[in-house]
């Protein structure tokens, strides 16, 4: 399986987990129950600490990695009674509400949740009123203080890293940019954070940091001139990425820099560019899934920002376990309103002044599986 990498940012967290592990080993052993949604385990009874992990869905490799991380941590600790549940699909708030209610009914000590939307806020508040400690993973709720704390990737920084890298690659040449976002019919934080982070990294004025597409269409980036051709939605999938890229190329055939919200979208964008017989373009992305890291190695993606879902869940389980034992609460990373679980740039063409790891290193700590 995957092992988490120790970066400077997370050394403290790793130290934390060692401590948690030591505590866990001294506790009584036992298997972690993992059901789906309504497992009939008695979470609060005895000295077992009940924890529910509620992901957006149970099919996306990112959330599968999260579930694996939580299961590993529960296995290690031995005194954790873990329940794994999820919405039926991304955006399914009702399924998550049911899972939260089940968790309260079971007497869990805490909940780890990647909220599917504001519709689950009321249920989260209900859980906290009942004394459960609630941690959001990956996706901060809106408003952020709905949960006790969020463990997430700094998506703005993830975007900034690929932006800085792209700026170095362009080296002052005119940049003709396509922005392949997630949606254009709803506003999601991960969507604007990555997009606006990328533009900031390039040195382009983003106007409103929480709004995609409000930038000046032409102007100067750090070192040269830029043109933004399009903001197209991809739904984060290959076919969406391809259609989006085709539409952008119709608007301007000279695109040489492509930002993509995630790696499946990048795959689709590359297919469209190849079909249009384009060369000399650069694609940047965010995710660091094993398939995406492989595409960095194959030269499809120039650079990608890697995030660590497995670690998010491990740290989350551990934090609830600690809280249940002695009331210690985790605290947010300096200067941020969430606990940063780290992000690293993966590229085989390192740029001056931007810290990165190679695709080979990235493949050792990636999530999901490469086909």
């Amino acid at each position, binding site marked *: 399986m995957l092992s988490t990498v120790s970066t400077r940012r997370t050394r403290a967290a790793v130290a934390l987990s060692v401590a948690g592990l030591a505590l866990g080993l001294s506790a009584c052993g036992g298997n972690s129950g993992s059901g789906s949604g309504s497992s009939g385990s008695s979470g609060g009874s005895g000295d077992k600490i009940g924890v529910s992990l509620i992901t957006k869905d149970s099919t*996306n490799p990112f959330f599968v990695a999260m579930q694996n991380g939580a299961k590993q941590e529960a296995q290690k600790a031995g005194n954790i009674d873990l329940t794994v549940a999820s919405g039926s699909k991304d955006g399914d708030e009702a399924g998550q509400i049911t899972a939260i209610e089940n968790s309260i009914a079971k007497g869990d000590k805490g909940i780890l949740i990647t909220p599917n939307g504001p519709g689950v806020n009321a249920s989260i508040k209900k859980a906290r009123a009942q004394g459960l400690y609630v941690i959001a993973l990956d996706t901060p709720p809106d408003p952020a203080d709905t949960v006790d704390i969020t463990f997430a990737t700094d998506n703005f920084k993830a975007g900034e890293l690929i932006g800085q890298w792209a700026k170095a690659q362009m080296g002052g040449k005119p940049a003709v940019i396509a922005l392949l976002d997630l949606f254009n019919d709803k506003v999601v934080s991960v969507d604007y954070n990555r997009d606006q982070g990328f533009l900031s990294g390039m040195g382009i004025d983003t106007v409103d940091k929480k709004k995609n597409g409000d930038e000046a269409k032409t102007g100067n980036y750090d070192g040269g001139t830029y043109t933004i051709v399009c903001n197209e939605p991809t739904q984060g999938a290959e076919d969406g990425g391809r259609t989006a890229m085709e539409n952008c190329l119709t608007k301007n055939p000279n695109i040489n820099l492509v930002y993509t919200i995630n790696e*499946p979208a990048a795959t689709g964008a590359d297919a469209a560019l190849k079909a249009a017989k384009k060369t000399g373009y650069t694609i940047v992305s965010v995710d660091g899934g094993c*398939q995406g890291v492989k595409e960095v190695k194959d030269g499809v993606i120039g650079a990608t920002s890697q995030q660590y879902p497995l670690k998010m869940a491990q740290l989350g389980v551990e934090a609830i376990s600690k809280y249940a034992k002695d009331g210690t609460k985790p605290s947010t990373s300096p200067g941020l309103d969430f606990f940063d679980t780290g992000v690293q740039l993966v590229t085989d063409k390192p740029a001056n002044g931007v810290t990165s790891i190679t695709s080979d290193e990235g493949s050792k700590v990636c999530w999901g*599986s490469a086909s």
Partner: protein
Amino acid sequence: MTSSATKGGARESAAQAELSRRAQSPAQRLQHVLHSNPAISPAIILVLTVVVFSLLNSRFASANSLSLLVQQTAIVAALAIGQTLVILTAGIDLSVGAIAILSMMVMATVAAKNGVPGPVALLIGVALGTLAGALNGFLVTRLNLPPFIVTLGSLSIFTALALLYSNGQSIGADQMPDLLNWTGNSFSIAGFVVTNGVVIVLLMYLVVGFALSQTAWGRHVYAVGDDAESARLSGIASKRVLLSVYTVAGLIFGIAAWCQIGRASVASPNGIVDANLNSITAVVIGGTSLFGGRGGVLGTLIGALIVQAFATGLSLAGVDQNYRLLAVGILVIAAVAVDQWIRKVKS
């Protein structure tokens, strides 16, 4: 304005029809024309759409842009062929995209993970799609369950099977044999870029269009959709026709899955998720009646093109894509209203 059709459902003789046509108002004549050519109104809308968007942005009408429009439409258009057949029998298939995804994941996985050669993998995937369609047909005809309920259930079942089988993981193009990726390869005709997938989809339209209009099977499909009971009384094996329709639809979804691999350059269980409803939208806008027995695949192809033309046109014009949803919604309701109005001819 009395309708000239004789009561009792008996067919008018040609002479009678000729006599009554002279006694018709222009509106009734229009009804007759539309009734015998359901693809006319969507065709007019498509031409208008293309003209308006070309005026808004000159790039829209370029060979490159129109080639892409056809490529972007191809998958939904392919799935909509099967959907047309089912709707012609007064049924509905909500499991269209799910069958395609299941078929796609299986053909890709057996080739990539189990080393099955391309042609065999393709055959397995298409056969599975056919089987899935046959299962829908079996439940509808043998257990007499309503198609809406059957396919609502099988939508969940096939989606779950596809995700369980693939673990939610996609299979990259480089993992698959050339044959599976072949649908993504393209060639140029007079500046128009055509992918092999588009050719396959157009061939399917020709074959199914021919079967519907020129064969006994096609006539039976219309008859069953018009009135299953009277079709049965006139000696048509209604259940067998229905079963064949769902099975052929499954076969079409399996072939569409192959086209999707070429289009997305990957087999991903998270693709074509909106296909179920989009295929119904294309069929309805294309003038095929949800009450069965009237319509055809030509209209469906036009309907699918209209929806994508709105998406591309609005994108090029820099307009919020939510207006596409609005336009498509209006078109769907207008199409059903026109259908109802035409049906008055028969009453």
